């Protein structure tokens, strides 16, 4: 039982990070109907931004940690918005495939760009938040896990409020339902797209720092695996659906930690992709997704 609860907590903190990333994929898909393959690399840049920010704040403090998070989120927001503005926007009316290929190119550019600037040697991510081990009954919970879960919960609730309680959030939902109709009621498509990239990238930035805190080593290619997993999570939950992305991410986080803690731990990465195949066969629209027929 203790073992089970322990894995549950581990799974929750891993799932929370996947959720932060998966939301970015799903939001961009919702608004523009394409997969932003560079998203995982924005996440990576987030951990690098956090790494450098950490040098300028007192280590091991709550405020220092929050400052690092905030700086990483801000840096990623700027990066995400700039990527959209200068690479995806000019291709808005081009065939969907062009923008997809551009996203892959952007992803490689970020990976090798960071490698060029900072080298490919993995760096140790500093302990930006205070660290301790909490013992609850037989459970061991690291303060990092608590922070990951708490920060993610706050961000997810915040996102929910932004999307469902603000004017721009309403505009975002309108665009994802019907971009044409949204424009005809006076919604500025570009503003909504910029806003979507800003939100998604900020979450990825936070995810990058939280991930780096728990697996305390960062390198230019660190985004690839979590990015793929988060992408799978978004598909699993139903791409375009916000609750779906969060649900898919949690399922993936749990599945991965439970398999990781079993005799089959070598197969933990295979689980993500195995799940994807099963879901695609059984429910092509994902768990909470709706199959929509695109009218041309």
């Amino acid at each position: 039982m203790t073992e089970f609860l322990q894995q549950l907590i581990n799974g929750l903190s891993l799932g929370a990070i996947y959720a932060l990333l998966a939301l970015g994929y799903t939001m961009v898909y919702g608004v523009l109907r394409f997969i932003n393959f560079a998203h995982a690399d924005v996440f990576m840049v987030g951990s690098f931004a956090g790494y450098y920010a950490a040098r300028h704040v007192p280590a091991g403090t709550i405020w220092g940690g929050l400052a690092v998070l905030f700086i990483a989120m801000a840096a990623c927001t700027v990066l995400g918005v700039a990527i959209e503005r200068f690479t995806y926007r000019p291709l808005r009316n081009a065939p969907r495939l062009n923008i997809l290929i551009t996203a892959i190119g952007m992803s490689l550019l970020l990976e090798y760009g960071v490698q060029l600037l900072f080298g490919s040697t993995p760096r140790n991510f500093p302990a930006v938040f205070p660290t301790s081990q909490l013992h609850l009954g037989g459970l061991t919970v690291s303060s990092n896990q608590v922070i990951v879960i708490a920060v993610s919960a706050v961000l997810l609730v915040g996102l929910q409020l932004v999307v469902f309680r603000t004017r721009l959030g309403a505009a975002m939902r309108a665009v994802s339902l019907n971009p044409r109709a949204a424009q005809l009621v006076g919604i500025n498509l570009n503003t909504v797209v910029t806003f979507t990239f800003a939100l998604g990238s900020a979450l990825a930035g936070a995810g990058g720092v939280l991930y780096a805190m728990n697996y305390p080593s960062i390198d230019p290619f660190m985004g690839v695996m979590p990015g793929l997993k988060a992408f799978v999570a978004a598909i699993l939950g139903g791409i375009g659906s916000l609750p779906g992305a969060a649900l898919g991410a949690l399922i993936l986080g749990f599945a991965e930690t439970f398999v990781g803690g079993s005799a089959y731990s070598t197969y933990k990465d295979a689980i993500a992709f195995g799940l994807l195949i099963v879901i695609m066969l059984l429910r092509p629209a994902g768990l909470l997704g709706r199959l929509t027929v695109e009218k041309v």
Partner: protein
Amino acid sequence: MVKTHLRLLPSVLTLSHLSVAYGPIHAVNDISLEIPRGAIVTLIGGNGAGKTTTLQSISGLVRPAAGVIRFDGTDITRLAPHQIVALGLCHVPEGRLVFANLSVAENLALGAYLQRDPALVEQTRDHIFTLFPRLKERLKQTAGTLSGGEQQMLAIGRALMGRPRFLMLDEPSLGIAPRLVTTIFERIVEINRDQGITILLVEQNAHLALEISSHAYVLETGRISISGPSADLRADPRLKAAYLGG
């Protein structure tokens, strides 16, 4: 009489030598239109004549290849759709395009996206309920579950929530029960008469369109073939043969 009336009124929307191309295909080829303020003008023509494309280029959804569109003195040819809505020109698109997963109330609220005065929004909404009481009854219902006619009412209501001075309607009778078509056309006339909103109506049902409009243009494969006061066109033998069923 209609003729002189038209000449006296300044036009609120002018299209000069508008052309729209999809790749090598010219959907609209060098057309010019003038819509007098306060009028109902109709654009009729068969499938693929370029009617929808014309409306889409006016509302900014489609970029014209050539030509100028002026609305109330402003050149709107290169403006984005939301800027054109902000000027008071609203477009009820073909196929209605209601937000199917949202409720009637949410659809109407989105129609008022650019409206900043809650009291005015409330007032507009009440007025729309007097035009289409059905919408008030179905306020909480998901738009996608409404009948075609009700969706059309919602689409018109949503556009009116933007408090337009000029309304473009694309095939409001398409796929709608005949009884509701009559209601909707009566409301269109009311909107024009009581609120002074200028209307550009695209229709395949030429009978109906010519009945409620003062002036008409006939589009054929991207060009204007006939134009004139609707009363004259109703008697035009060319139109009778092609669109009015003999």
